[in-house]
């Protein structure tokens, strides 16, 4: 992900990476301020969290015997 975020790739690919949001705070300290990358980063992080937490919860439920 780190390597992909450094090369000149399509926007859709960048949106799927978790590394660009790490530097999205720069926009808050720019003049004029911008929050576009931060909003996209939050959305990307939310999607990753939902997908992988969901998968983990489902996997955990299947493993434990129900009482």
């Amino acid at each position, binding site marked *: 992900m780190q390597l992909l975020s450094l090369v000149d790739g399509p926007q859709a690919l960048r949106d799927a990476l978790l590394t660009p949001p790490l530097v999205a705070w*720069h926009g808050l300290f720019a003049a004029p301020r*911008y929050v*576009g990358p931060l909003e996209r980063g939050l959305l990307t992080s939310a999607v990753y969290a939902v997908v992988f937490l969901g998968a983990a919860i489902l996997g955990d439920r299947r493993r434990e015997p129900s009482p």
Partner: protein
Amino acid sequence: MRSAWKLLWAAALATASSACMRAQVTQERIEESLGPTFANLVHVQEPLLGQPPVAAATLKASASCRKVGPVPGNRGAGAWKCTVTWFTVNGTPLRDEYDLSVGMDGCYTATVDGAQLGGPTLHGPGGGDVPNLLYVFDACFDTT
């Protein structure tokens, strides 16, 4: 019915590819960032040098940039060359050349090309050295 599906697919593909190919680092975005950033730094620098403060807007700083290298088209990360045109308080127009190294995240480092703006440090009002904010600076712009 089949042709309708084909049309739908073509439309979806066209939309997806145009969304994919939209450049994030463009000439316009760099120029819109460099001009105001330069003016803001002059605004900060003048009091450091013991000069009366200058409002950034009065400098009317604007930038004109072009990409350096073999890649065609004025877009994409990498090396750029920019000319900043600005006006002193007296209205005298000045031009300064900058070499930019632009990253995919929209952040860049601008280094002045030429001696017009001085070296890395300048003489402060108290006799000491003060950093020359216009010699090399970092800034970022919105790539979305």
